[in-house]
């Protein structure tokens, strides 16, 4: 995943130049960057006239759309996270959250309702909370809950399902349940070494503003790079999977739920828009649609890439399957209770 050349899109000639040397020696030209700009200029005028195949253009539109749509939320989330790290004292969180981890998890989950954004914003914010001493299980409950239960997403869900207000209630209840359960399970079984050590806080002699700028730049480069990995994968699957394959399995009881859960992972649609896509899958049962809505904001390709970039792989390969299993299980239970 860290080898850019293996995931480069076709027609995209950016074989990453090696990272330049440390800049401790004073003024030094950023050679890697100059090479990048040169490649860009050459590509713009030499290659561009040949890059017109419809499949490539459709792929590129979806890829650019995912990036362009997610970047404002990522910038917002990173700024909020950097502000939390630089300006909010650690003592604030110990007062705001209950001391006992098991009690802090549901509080943090419900607090997720106040961050109006999609999943790209919640990852850096959760990381910033952890760096400021919030217990990881509580920060993780916040991470899972906030993209699914914030007001913007719930209103979008209500608009997408005008005849079915129970879908909004079910989505809220199921998502919050998954977030709290995941937090509790992590509190019981999680180990400290699976998460990276908290990011360095302000260095001695560094002003708060400088610490803010450094944290923001670091997070943007880190999370942004992985966001692009997720966008590459999502765009590819978006173009490769014909939707007509789906209707073939729509009537099968359990399989249809699993298929829509998997589709939510692969398509990586922003949580503010996924309700409209779910509503368009008219052939599927309400339980399958609910699984799509619960899984999507918690586990999808771009989110997995973002989490791996922010929290490390040891964390991600344990946390993602746990969340996915919980999300599907809770969707089954909620869907059954709805009937």
């Amino acid at each position, binding site marked *: 995943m860290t080898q850019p050349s293996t995931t480069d899109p076709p027609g995209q000639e950016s074989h990453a130049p090696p990272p330049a040397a440390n800049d401790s020696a004073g003024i030094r030209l*950023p050679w890697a960057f100059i090479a990048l700009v040169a490649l860009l200029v050459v590509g713009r005028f030499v290659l561009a006239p040949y890059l017109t195949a419809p499949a490539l253009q*459709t792929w590129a539109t979806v890829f650019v759309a995912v990036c362009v749509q997610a970047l404002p939320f990522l910038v917002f989330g990173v700024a909020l996270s950097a502000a939390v790290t630089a300006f909010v004292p650690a003592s604030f969180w110990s007062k705001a959250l209950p001391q006992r981890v098991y009690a802090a998890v549901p509080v943090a989950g419900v607090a997720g309702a106040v961050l109006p954004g999609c999943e790209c914003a919640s990852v850096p914010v959760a990381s910033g909370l952890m760096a400021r001493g919030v217990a990881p299980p509580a920060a993780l409950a916040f991470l899972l809950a906030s993209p699914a239960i914030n007001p913007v997403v719930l209103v979008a869900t209500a608009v997408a399902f005008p005849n079915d207000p129970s879908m909004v209630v079910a989505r809220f209840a199921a998502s919050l349940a998954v977030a709290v359960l995941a937090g509790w399970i992590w509190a019981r079984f999680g180990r400290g070494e699976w998460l990276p050590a908290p990011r360095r806080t302000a260095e001695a002699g560094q002003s708060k503003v400088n610490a803010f700028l450094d944290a923001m730049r670091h997070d943007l480069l880190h999370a942004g790079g992985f966001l692009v990995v997720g966008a590459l994968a999502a765009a590819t699957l978006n173009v490769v999977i014909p939707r007509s394959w789906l209707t073939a399995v729509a009537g099968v009881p359990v399989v249809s739920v699993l298929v829509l859960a998997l589709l939510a992972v692969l398509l990586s649609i922003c949580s503010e828009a996924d309700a409209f896509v779910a509503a368009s899958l008219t052939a599927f049962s309400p339980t399958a649609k609910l699984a799509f809505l619960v899984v999507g904001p918690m586990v999808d390709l771009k989110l997995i890439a973002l989490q791996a970039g922010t929290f490390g792989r040891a964390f991600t390969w344990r946390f993602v399957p746990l969340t996915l299993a919980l999300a599907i299980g809770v969707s089954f239970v909620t869907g059954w209770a709805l009937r």
Partner: protein
Amino acid sequence: MNRQTQGALLAILGAVLLTISAFSTTYVNYVKPGFRPLLVGAGAVLVGLGLLSVAQGWLGRPGAHGHAPRVAWLLAAPVFAIAMIAPPALGSFAARLDDGAPAPSRTANYGKLGRGGVTELTLGEFIGRAYAPSGSSLTGRKVRLTGFAVPSKTGWYVTRMRINCCAADAMALEVAVHGVPSPKENTWVQVTGTWIPWKEGVPDDYEPPALTATDVTAIAQPAEPYE
């Protein structure tokens, strides 16, 4: 990647965001028009942060010398895609991938259409009216639809993509056109004609409604390519 390079990469990404949102309207090919202020804001923050980082590096201000991971170079990928492929709005290729089953709003209240003259309708409203349970308000009315042409085995569709957030969640709205031969694929057209009523009532499984066209005019791509 040293600090100047990190800053320059962020600045160029921000500049591209500003180019497609503040200085042109290319962004409507990718996201809803309402995203513009968000994109301009994010672009400005990226440019500002990038230039500050470059300046700090050159002035030798103290700061973290943390090396960015190599994956950060991938932030150049969207820049390359926008500059070299200049991705257009989704067209017939994407429409064919979708099996074209939007959820028609079966409860929306549509006003009456004028008896004389031609009424401009969006494809979404045309489909919604055709699926209205209380008898279609389209019967006998002349309407004008705007979309691009997608030829099929049996004829052709006037098509437009509907997006709710970004092009990744696009779905195709299609209306079959009878009576006029298909224009070239992906040509934007205005189709004037009359709805063909369902033969056996409103169908249970979705199928695109159809219209008999009297006139098809080629037009330029609308400023907002999606519905």
